[in-house]
């Protein structure tokens, strides 16, 4: 440090002596190299499977047998994709994943709609229209979210049988609605609870009833959380395997079950390229949904989970 006296003199003279302005920084400080290095390394771990799946699905079988999963395809072929989509066999049924895809779509749309409609109304009722016992039911519901599905598999078989929906697409829709309810209800309840209570009171004073407040006040405000719920449900239901395998029959198999069947129906050698193409095809819908709305998802997860 310079001698204060001279420094003062310099300051008085209006000259800028000593450090001024922003502290000079090395462009690649050690901390930054470490930080970005770690992130890039970890990114590779996360991207590896996707890369391998894509690469493998574009190779022919001979090239795969030669080894090296990680090498890029020498000769790109889309045959595995075609085969996975339309030709791969489970037993006699050689229609590939296409049928499973449409089944999944048919299951997905009503399940998502129904589960979100019910859960949002529940969440709304629970946060604004508490009645005696509502919290008790909600607590049971939340605990239900953590109960292993295994304890309820068999009773549900019986229940579905009793209402005649076993094996039906609608049976599976119902199961998804039921098991989606706890988390979604929690999500909506947390969201609606964070809506100022005064807004609700104002609407009451304005003479609006249960449904009017729901549709005219709450629903338009809940758009972000609806997006999150939709993403959660779309990925969750699309990716479900356990319920699909137990509560459906081959004609109504969803895509994941079909995928598992195709991959496990080995005829001769395993056709890894077809398997990977099938795997990618199955993951495509949730991935697209996720990439298209990743930001909202992240924000919503934060809103729903951290407050929880």
């Amino acid at each position: 440090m310079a001698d204060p006296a001279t420094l003062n003199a310099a300051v008085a003279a209006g000259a800028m002596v000593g450090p001024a302005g922003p502290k000079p920084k090395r462009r690649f400080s050690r901390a930054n190299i470490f930080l970005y290095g770690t992130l890039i390394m970890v990114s590779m771990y996360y991207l590896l499977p996707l890369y391998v799946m894509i690469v493998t699905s574009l190779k022919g079988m001979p090239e795969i047998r030669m080894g090296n999963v990680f090498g890029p395809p020498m000769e790109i072929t889309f045959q595995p994709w075609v085969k996975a989509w339309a030709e791969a066999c489970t037993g006699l049924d050689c229609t590939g994943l296409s049928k499973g895809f449409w089944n999944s779509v048919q299951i997905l749309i009503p399940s998502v709609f129904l589960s979100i409609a019910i859960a949002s109304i529940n969440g709304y009722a629970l946060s604004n229209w508490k009645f005696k016992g509502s919290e008790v039911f909600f607590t049971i519901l939340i605990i239900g979210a953590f109960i292993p599905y295994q304890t309820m598999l068999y009773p549900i078989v019986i229940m579905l049988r009793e209402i005649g929906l076993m094996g039906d697409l609608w049976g599976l829709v119902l199961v998804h609605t039921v098991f989606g309810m706890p988390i979604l209800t929690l999500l909506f309840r947390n969201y609606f609870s964070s809506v100022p209570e005064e807004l609700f009171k104002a609407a009451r004073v304005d003479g609006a009833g249960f449904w009017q407040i729901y549709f005219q006040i709450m629903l338009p405000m809940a758009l972000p959380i609806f997006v999150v719920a939709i993403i959660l449900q779309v990925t969750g239901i699309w990716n479900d395997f356990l319920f699909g395998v137990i509560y459906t029959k081959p004609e109504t198999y969803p895509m994941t079950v079909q995928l598992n069947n195709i991959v496990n129906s080995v005829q001769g050698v395993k056709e890894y390229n077809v398997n990977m193409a099938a795997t990618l095809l199955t993951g495509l819908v949730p991935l697209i949904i996720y990439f298209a709305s990743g930001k909202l998802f992240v924000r919503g997860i934060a809103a729903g989970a951290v407050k929880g």
Partner: protein
Amino acid sequence: VELEVTHWWTSGGEAAAVAKFAEAWNATGNSWVDGAIAGSGGTARPIIISRILGGDPMGATQLNHGRQAEELIEAGLMLDLTDVAEAGGWKDIVNPSSLLDSCTLDGKIYCVPVNIHSAQWLWLSHDAYEAAGVPVPANWNEFVDSAPALQEAGIVPLAMGQQGWQQNLAFGAITIAVAGLDAWREVTVNKNADVARGPEYTAVFEAVAAARELARDSNVQDWNEATNMVITGKAGAQLMGDWAQGEFSVAEQVEGQDYSCLPGLGLNEILDTGGDAFYFPVNDDPEITAAQKELAALLISPEVQVSFNLAKGSLPVRGDIDMAAANGCMQKGLGILATGGILPSGDMALSADTQTQIEDLMAQFWSSDMPAAEAQEKYAALIESAD
């Protein structure tokens, strides 16, 4: 009439065989809706059962006959086929008759046996032995002796799919070969745990432990992948049921030239007579019930039996048909069958529960370093508590 038929025949040869059923059924003006469920019977059975219990029965379904369907029958969920059987004179044509017995409960018949499967086969790759420069062995003992040569040549001596049922199958085959029929019967049918603890079984477990070493480098899961190792000469041999024949056929290999098959592992001229049967869940719709009975009769008809079993590589359930078109391996089997060298399948003697427990034990035994004695003791305990 559309009938949905569920089964777990999804490998190449199996699928080809099912196609024969489907063709025959479609030829009658009905339509076959294929409900293949991939994976082993273990995967498929729960689905089949939960659907039947869930009130959404399929038209017909494959099940291993034996004790698997007992409770479903008791609960009145399975169609009584006695009238069809009497009309078709099944009692007289089904050979061996034990097959029909296991379809019978309280004097009524509930299933159609469609084939006979035996598990005690050793499949050997000629390519592999050629590469190792040793002659193709003629029985299990020779195979064990030849193993070091294979290993030197970089060939896995024994291909083994790492699934409990395959390992259990190998265990069963080795048991009959090593301990002999009487001991096997005493343990499996009569559930005599003392014998299971006895010296014969000690030898069995040691033999299995030895086989375990031979299969060390086999990394495949599914049985047909293991078979494929034999086909491609990557492995010397595989212990698998006669259905492996289908894979060899699909790969267009010729018995005696590309591969050899040794029933009873070349030691005992004897085969178990497990097999597949079709059950018909009760349905409210009389039209469907009629169609179910029609299908039942069709499945056991001579032409269908021939075409199906030729494709599947299994033996027909009736002794009165001409199987001249069958290949060498099948002929060997037919020969044994004709001489009466048969024994019941473990499926019929043990409940699915016990079966699963034994499979779990075998899976554990084969994939770990569990000492033979320990495995034997655990096995005996399972036999003791079996029902």
